[in-house]
Every structure is written in structure tokens, then in C-alpha cells.
């Protein structure tokens, strides 16, 4: 019992849970293991996966970002509208990346410089940015004019769709940044103890601003790919994304109290979220139930986080 608990709450606990779940699902759910379904699964987690990369940094530094869903929709919208208006996809993509980055930068400045609570700030920007997306499009979906835009999502490299490659690339990049750069380690240090980090010469304010700006930028990448996949800019796209992303991160061992994060964990967390959804689809479970399941996953994730930190001796003051 005790050793089982140790394994489950330890470093590799999540991987063990994931492997077990994967085997069980492969055996019991028909068609799950087919190539088609596997690619579909990966494609379905592209948005969550990409945004999780930076959400991990945000949570690891003891911050929080609720505005990611809105930013994804908003920047997707900008990408489509600017490419339509200018006739240049490149310009559209640039505008989207800038817009996403600007939202993030705004969050970061308000939170880090003016010391406003991150939860409240991003709750506000979540509404504002969603509103902007709705205003810009007059509440309707905006279709893509240039079919080349679809190619972003439709093209394949070695039979695997480009968005999946982009997600994998970002996993690698951000995994490297977290573990092997001063930026990553400083992020974790800020989460562990912001005041101690400041006194040790870490520029906490600038770091936090950067993390949010990066988050906005990465949301824009996700937004562009999403728009390309659904062939339009949808002002209502990616609602509730923030919760899925945070669930995936926490499930992946990122501590809500800050200071702890691992890219592998987050990847597994993302996959667990994807598999749960995928299996429910394969088993034809009604969409309404899926909300309940997603909520339960979030609860389990937080519970695990709690158990893990107690096991790690953090309860000891």
C-alpha cells in the first residue's frame, strides 16, 4: 500500500498511471489503437498541448492565466481578418502573433508592475479579449478567403499533420527552456519563493512580464492553427480552454503553489485529457456527460497536487 502510494505520487507516478490507462483503453475500446484514431487524438490535443507549454511557466512562477481561451480565439480571428483584408497570409500571421503577444504583455504588465492579482486580471482580460473578437467579427464566423491558409493545418510532413509537428517542436523547445536555461530555472525559483529570488538578483517583475507575453504569443500560434483547421475565424472558439489547459498542467505535476513543473508531466497530462475525450467520443458518450468528466479530471488533478506536495514534505513548515 505504502509503496504503491510512493510510486503514484512520485516523480514518475503520472507516467505509470498514463501507461496503465493507455493499455486498458487499447484493450477495451475498439478502434482506439488505429493509426487514424491516434492521429485524430493528437490533432485534437494540439491547442491544449501548445498552450500548456507556456501555462506551465505561468503556474510554475505562482501565476495564473484565465485569458488563454479568449486570446486563442482573438488571435485566430485577427489572422483570418488581416489575411483576408491584405491578401497576404504572412501579414495575417504576423498580426495574429503580435496581437496575442500584446494581450500577454498587457496581462504581464498589469500583474507584475501594478501588482494586481493574476486571477482577477486575467479574468478581466478574458472577457475583454473575447469581447474584442466578437466586436471585430460582429459575432459571426469569418471565412478564410485564401485556400492556402487551410494548408497550415492540412499539410503533412512524413504523413503526420503539420500542427502535430509544431506541438512536438514546442514541447521540445519549452522543455529545454524549463530545464536547461536560466529563464526556466528562474521561473521555478520565483514560484518557490519570489522574495528570496528577488534578493538573489532575479528580476522578478521582468520575468513575470515575459512569461505572460510568451503565453500570449504561444496562444496566437494555437489560434492560427485552430483557425486554419476550422477554416474560419470563430469568435467563440476555444471557450473553456483555460480550464482544460490548467487541468492538463496540474495533472502533469505542475504545482499550483509554484516551484514545481516538468515538461514530460505536462505532455502526459495533455494526453490524458485527450484520451479521456477521445474515448468518450469513440464510446458515443453524450457531450453533456463530457463536462462532468472534465470537471472530475480537474478535481482529481488538484487532489493529486495536494497529495503530492504533502508527500514531498511541503506540509512541513
Amino acid at each position: 500500500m505504502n509503496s504503491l502510494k510512493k510510486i503514484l505520487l512520485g516523480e514518475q507516478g503520472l507516467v505509470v498511471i498514463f501507461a496503465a490507462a493507455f493499455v486498458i483503453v487499447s484493450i477495451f475500446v475498439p478502434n482506439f489503437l488505429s493509426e487514424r484514431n491516434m492521429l485524430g487524438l493528437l490533432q485534437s490535443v494540439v491547442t491544449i498541448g501548445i498552450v500548456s507549454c507556456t501555462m506551465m511557466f505561468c503556474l510554475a512562477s505562482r501565476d495564473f492565466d484565465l485569458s488563454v481561451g479568449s486570446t486563442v480565439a482573438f488571435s485566430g480571428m485577427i489572422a483570418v481578418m488581416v489575411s483576408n483584408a491584405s491578401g497576404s497570409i504572412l501579414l495575417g500571421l504576423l498580426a495574429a502573433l503580435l496581437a496575442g503577444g500584446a494581450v500577454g504583455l498587457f496581462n504581464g504588465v498589469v500583474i507584475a508592475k501594478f501588482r494586481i492579482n493574476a486571477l482577477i486580471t486575467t479574468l478581466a482580460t478574458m472577457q475583454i479579449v473575447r469581447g474584442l473578437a466578437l466586436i471585430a467579427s460582429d459575432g459571426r464566423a469569418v471565412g478564410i478567403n485564401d485556400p492556402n491558409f487551410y494548408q497550415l493545418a492540412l499539410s503533412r510532413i512524413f504523413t503526420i499533420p503539420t500542427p502535430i509537428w509544431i506541438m512536438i517542436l514546442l514541447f521540445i523547445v519549452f522543455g529545454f527552456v524549463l530545464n536547461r536555461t536560466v529563464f526556466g530555472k528562474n521561473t521555478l525559483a520565483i514560484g518557490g519563493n519570489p522574495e528570496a529570488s528577488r534578493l538573489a538578483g532575479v528580476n522578478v517583475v521582468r520575468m513575470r512580464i515575459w512569461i505572460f507575453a510568451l503565453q500570449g504569443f504561444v496562444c496566437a500560434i494555437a489560434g492560427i492553427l485552430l483557425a486554419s483547421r476550422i477554416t474560419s475565424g470563430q469568435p467563440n472558439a476555444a471557450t473553456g480552454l483555460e480550464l482544460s489547459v490548467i487541468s492538463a498542467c496540474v495533472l502533469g505535476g505542475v504545482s499550483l503553489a509554484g516551484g514545481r513543473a516538468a515538461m514530460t508531466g505536462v505532455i502526459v497530462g495533455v494526453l490524458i485529457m485527450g484520451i479521456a475525450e477521445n474515448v468518450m467520443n469513440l464510446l458515443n458518450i453524450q457531450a453533456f456527460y463530457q463536462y462532468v468528466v472534465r470537471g472530475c479530471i480537474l478535481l482529481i488533478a488538484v487532489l493529486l497536487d495536494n497529495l503530492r506536495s504533502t508527500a514531498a514534505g511541503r506540509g512541513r513548515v
Partner: protein
Amino acid sequence: MMAFLEFRTISKSYPGVQALSDISFAVEKGVVHGLMGENGAGKSTLIRILSGDQSADTGSILIEGEEQNYRSARDAFHAGVIVIHQELQLVPELTVAENLWLGRFPGKAGIIDSRTLVETVRTKLEEIGIDVDPNAKVSTLSIGARQMVEIAKAVMLEARVIALDEPTSSLSSRESEILFSLIEKLKSNGTIILYVSHRLDEIFRLCDSLTVLRDGKLAAHHLKVADTTRDQIISEMVGREISNIWGWRERPLGDVRLDVRSLSGPKLRNPINFSVRKGEILGLFGLIGAGRSEMARLLYGADNRHQGSVSIDGVAISPNNPKAAINAGMVFCPEDRKFDGIVQGRSIEENITISSRRHFSPFGILSPKKEAALADRFIAKLRVRTPSRKQDIINLSGGNQQKVILGRGLSEQGVKVLVIDEPTRGIDVGAKSEIYEILYELAASGIAIIVISSELPEVMGISDRIIVMCQGRVAADIPRSDFDERNILTAALPDKNAAGTI
């Protein structure tokens, strides 16, 4: 006389560490029992087991011959055992009175009777002789005052056994005196006091009996402290003789390195001037609240200054920015290790290299080998007791955490000025003398060092010069040739006539 509290064959291990092995000893009723040992010897672990906070792997605890098998701090508390930990445990956002009543607020139907709440606490505090406002929020109190509140809490709960883990490490000498008389009072009521400290003076003054731990094992048990000597206890602790713990030697001093001109800040209204020369160790002494730490924080830019200038080798450093101070060659080790020092959840390695890693990280990309080498160097140099540099810092003993924070400052490159606030708080005698050696070495290489300490013998033992602060002013500036305990204390006291009382 019957043993009142007994430890029987207690063992405890953590991954990679045998924290305690086979510890057995007994303590009689109405006795102050000392517990000594090097950093990481297992003192706090033993206390944590006594408090039910952790459970022993094997062995048992008996109180009045009755085996205790409590599983939580709450059970221990009902058995009459109260522990005051090395790291304080009050809720900062509640008032003193609320903290003392926490868990059993007086009143009916969930509505707190705030009159009783405050008045009982006021009477109790007065009775014990602690000068703290029951309505003050704990977060506004000094560390020393918080400590007194914790002790008041134990008294209020009428504990049978009170264990104090390094209680005086954050107290001023006056507060310590209050604590000592409190301990005497409790002892005469038949309470057992288990007293952990690194300070031999206190052990000789307070304790009747003593246990020395070394590497988790029982090194010695003295039924009568009076029958032993300091040197004997030290060698039992460290396993070797330490003849002269200060080891101060004359050093040549260079030009002025650090120059402070009319510096003032929110908590330090009177402008302060002084300078420190190359190779000089300046001791800053004063009572708690004299403004020493505030000044150090202003120097470094940890707090915002109102006016004044701080320059190193004639170059002014930009204010209010720790990072700029570090770049200019100033390193600061803060006093409060829990809040300003350790980065919880991160490894010893990361805690040591947090500020210096940027030097060997081209384009911000770390080089794990160099980081590891640097960490290992300071783990070895400061003798941090740990199975690996990857260990989470929170798992280290208090004194070892302190060493890591020191290592962080010492590992920075191009240091010109080192400001350390209470560097040896919670550090054992052996390690202390090693740290002093390191300071002399650094000073000899031309670094200007400011050491803040509340321990007068330490300040007098290692400084080339002492600045005494009192109520936010420089009260005296004394060269080593004129060091005199009485003069320094007199300068430190706000009320000059009260000098005789300490």
C-alpha cells in the same frame, strides 16, 4: 526519581539519510534537558517525533511510564506535549490573541467572544512578562516578539513537556532573559523542558542534564551538566577539539571599498554615514530593532531608500535594485532564511547557484556540469550534510539551510562587498569556526565584509571594527583595539542608564 519522559530505541530514516539511530535516554521531572549536536545531527527530527509531527520508524516514547502512540500533532498536544519549532508556526494574518486561542476560540454558537479572547491573553502576557499587544497582527511583530508569542501559547496550554528548538536564535538578549526566567518558572512547576541550542552558554546556564547527538547517534548523556566542561561537550559533538573558535588574525587593510553617505529609508530616518575598507570585517551590533537589518537591506537595494548614496570603489551603485547591487559586486545574505532565503521545492544545487549561474550560461543556456561542480564545491566547503546536491532544500536541517544560503552569496563572482545578516544563526560550533575562516580568507583577498550579528562575543571575536547601532543611528564606531563588552552594550542601549541591567 522516576523518569518522566523516556525515549526508547528511536530510529528514523529519510531517503538516503539515517537521521536517528537507536536513541534511548530519559529525562526526569522538573528538569531542563539540553539537546546538542552538529547541524543535521538529528535534534529537530527527535523533537518532531516527540511532537507527533513525524513518526519514528522504530522505538517508542514514554511519558510517566506510559507508552505514547500518538499519530498526529493533535494527539501529542492532548498528551501535554508542546513543541516550539525552529521555524515559527503562527498565522501571520491573525492577531496575537487569535493565534493563542486558535483551534478553541472562546464563545458561543460560533460567535467569538472577543472580549474574553483579548483580555485573557492580555492578563496572561502580563503575568508572563511579555510586552506585546494582544491586538497586534502577528505579521507586524518582530521575529523575537513572535517567538515570545509562541512560548506564551505553550504556557497557556499548560503543557507537561515543552520542547524548544533553538528558541533564542532570533531573540535579543533582553528577550532571551525573559525566556530564561520563564523557563525557570515553568521548571519549578514541574514541567519538563527540552532545550535545543547551539549556544553553550545557554546550555550551562539553563540545563540540568544534557544529551549530545552526533550523526543521528547518541554521543553522550550527561546527568549533570555542571560536571562537564565546554571543551568536553564540543569534542563530543564535533569529534575533535576546537581550541579557538574565533581564530582572528591581523590583516592589512586597503583603501576605502564601500562608502555610504547620508543613507536613509522608510524605517531608518536618520541619515547614516560610514565606510568599509578593502579587507576589513566590520561588525554591526545593536539590539533587535536598532535598524541594522534595515540598513543592510537599504545598502543592497532590497528596500527603497529615501536618499543618500552607496558606492563601491568610488562608483555609485544604482538604488533600490538588488540585481544592480549584485552586478556592482555587492552580495547580501538575508537574515530571515525562511522568507528571504531558501527557495522551497528547489534543490540545494539550484539554491546555491541561483544568482551566480548567469555567469556560466552563455545565451542563458545552463551548463549542468559547471553548475554541479560549483554546488559540490560549496557543499564540501561549508560541509552541508546531505545525501546529494539534488535534495530539496526544505529537507535539510535548519543549520544546513543556512549554510546553503551562505554558499549562494559566496559563490557569486567578482564580489567586492559582502553583507551578511546573522550568518551563523542556527549553525553549530564546528561549522561556525569554519565559516569564520572563510570570511577571513575572503577579507584577505580584498573583499569588504559587513557582518550583522546579535551575538556580542561573535561580533567582538571576528570584527576588525564594530559599529554599534541604536534606534536607527550609529551610536558608536569602535576599532578592535578598543573592544570592550561593557562599552559596546552601553552604546547599544537606548536608555543609557539601564546598561547595568543586562
